[in-house]
């Protein structure tokens, strides 16, 4: 490292690795109830992680949640962009993941054909 600018460039690169220890950014939430897992939630989760890595997306946290009762619509995936309503996608297959990430997570456009619910969360 020769200059302060080198240090700052390195920091910027490193911060993306520790960022998930601070809240903020877009959340992707996968339903990991027994019903979700049976319907293939692990495979969807793996596809999400792959897609994030492929696109080198930053400021994203991937979380899990339990069964919310809509078992026949599993695998359920929620996307929450900061300040926007929580959108639930149903019957998500690993092949749908690139579309959801490209359209909704990155560009903020809902993937209408997969949406099953929209929840306005109290701010």
């Amino acid at each position: 490292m020769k200059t302060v600018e080198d240090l700052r460039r390195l920091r910027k690169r490193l911060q993306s690795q520790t960022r998930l220890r601070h809240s903020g950014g877009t959340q992707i939430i996968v339903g990991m109830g027994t019903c979700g897992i049976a319907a293939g939630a692990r495979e969807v989760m793996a596809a999400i992680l792959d897609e994030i890595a492929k696109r080198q997306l930053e400021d994203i946290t991937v979380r899990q949640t339990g069964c919310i009762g809509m078992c026949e619509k599993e695998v359920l995936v929620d996307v929450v962009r900061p300040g926007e309503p929580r959108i639930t996608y149903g019957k998500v297959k690993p092949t749908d993941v690139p579309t959801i990430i490209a359209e909704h997570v990155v560009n903020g456009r809902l993937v209408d054909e997969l949406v099953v619910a929209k929840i306005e969360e109290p701010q």
Partner: protein
Amino acid sequence: MQYVRSHVLVCGGTGCTSSGSKELQAALKSELAKKGLSKEVAVVETGCHGFCEMGPLVIVYPEGVFYVRVQVSDVPELVDSHLYKGRVVERLLYREPKSHEKVPNYNDIDFYKKQMRVVLANCGHINPEVIEDYIAAGGYEALGKVLTEMTPEEVIDEIKKSGLRGRGGGGFPTGMKWEFTKKAPGDKKYVVCNADEGDPGAFMDRSVLEGDPHRVLEGMAICGYAIGSDEAYIYVRAEYPLAIKRLKTAIAQAEAMGLLGDNIFGSGFSFRIHIKEGAGAFVCGEETALLQSIEGKRGMPRPRPPFPAISGLWGKPTNINNVETYANVPQIIIKGADWYASIGTERSKGTKVFALTGKINNTGLAEVPMGITMREIIFDIGGGIQEGKRFKAVQIGGPSGGCLPETMLDLPIDYDSLVQAGAMMGSGGLVVMDETTCMVDVAKFFLNFTQSESCGKCTPCREGTKRMLEILTRITNGEGQEGDIELLESMARSIKAASLCGLGQTAPNPVLSTIRYFRNEYEAHIRDKRCPAGVCVKLAVFRITELCKGCGLCKKICPAGAISGELKSRHMVDPAKCIRCGACIAKCPFKAIVKE
């Protein structure tokens, strides 16, 4: 590159390591591998979170769920339930001792709520063995700033303006110390970090060195630039092996990256840091003795002046600060002196790290703004006294400090208020005592410590502390005489006035402060031959109460044959034969035997 969705932070401080965190990490890694989660969940070893009572501690991100006392046997459930399915394992959450409510999130726990973490900001949140974690958290930015944007004079001005005072005990203004060393004539100057933490019950500096070693290195390098030094020593005791290991790792990483060594950031400033391991003599925490020890001589203090700023290591101008002082420096440079000076009281700025030990619920480390009251530290952060007992006193400042009673709990804590109250800030050890503690015994304990650690160079300390200890021993043995208290006071004054170094000058403080606040306990020992707390064994009287059913178990267990009585009738203790071992109390099924 694989995207890691979850970080599992496992505390690797000394406290948690001894409660099994190394085994826990290994178990987590193998369980994650078994579930096929190794690539998406990272296990990160961190430094101390300060909540040592509850270790081993585990925090799971992104949720920030805080698990306490996690055992290897809990790992399969933790991985399957939380990391695989996203369900919080409720039974491993922390419960507030007051409300008994479970608290899933780190920042909502009472222990952390009242804290203000400046020095400990990274401790427990970064991996101390990975320099990249420190850099990601803003590390070495302050060093970059001073080297490229500030003159040494501006750095010293900034530190002076911040109001930072030495965190090792005396509280001397840090900026002034730096200025003296800078202005001292000489080409070669040294920076020394005093990491010879030796107060009983103190572990603040160890936790900083183990949890965030780069912060200390960065503070030292900034000091080196300010005073015109290119070489530094960290004097750390050999019984801190983990701290030494992490310091060595940190120095090697910083040198490999060009953040220490020659021509840092192309500024022409070069700085090298060496580690000197001390053998653990308490007196080597005194700065002149410490310098002697680095030079390879016997650690003994010498008269000052000349102060180390003029003539220190190998006769060269030397700046000595302790670990916590240096650890404050990078934040002052980044956030500015005004920010720092806005925290704390009129004459004591910033935060202070305290080590909470003794009869307190939450043993651990707490960093609080100056000016907070002892009550807030002990009852809000510390969670109060164990087993619901009554608070009696708190020993602050280690063997050099004093014991403060309940009436002083609402005193705002800063350097000056503590000295006025007969104690001192010291390095920040807080030993909390409850109603079952005998204050004469406590004074004897601390004096025994300083007496054994006295280096023997000057007579008042060597002879004086020994004679005072003899008097205290006599008093606790029931052989106290009228006039002992006054004799202790007069000797204490002489020792304070005539000793060569800080060890002797402060050694009588625990005696003086316990006499000041608990004189009646001394009088009870001397006049009534009674220990009100029932601690001093030679003064204890064992009595069998009417709860006795006459079972005879005590008679059987008594090694001195001091108990007599017929079966099914109340037994008696013969005080002449009783050796006060307490075996009868432990044996009695009816709690009929009392020690008074």
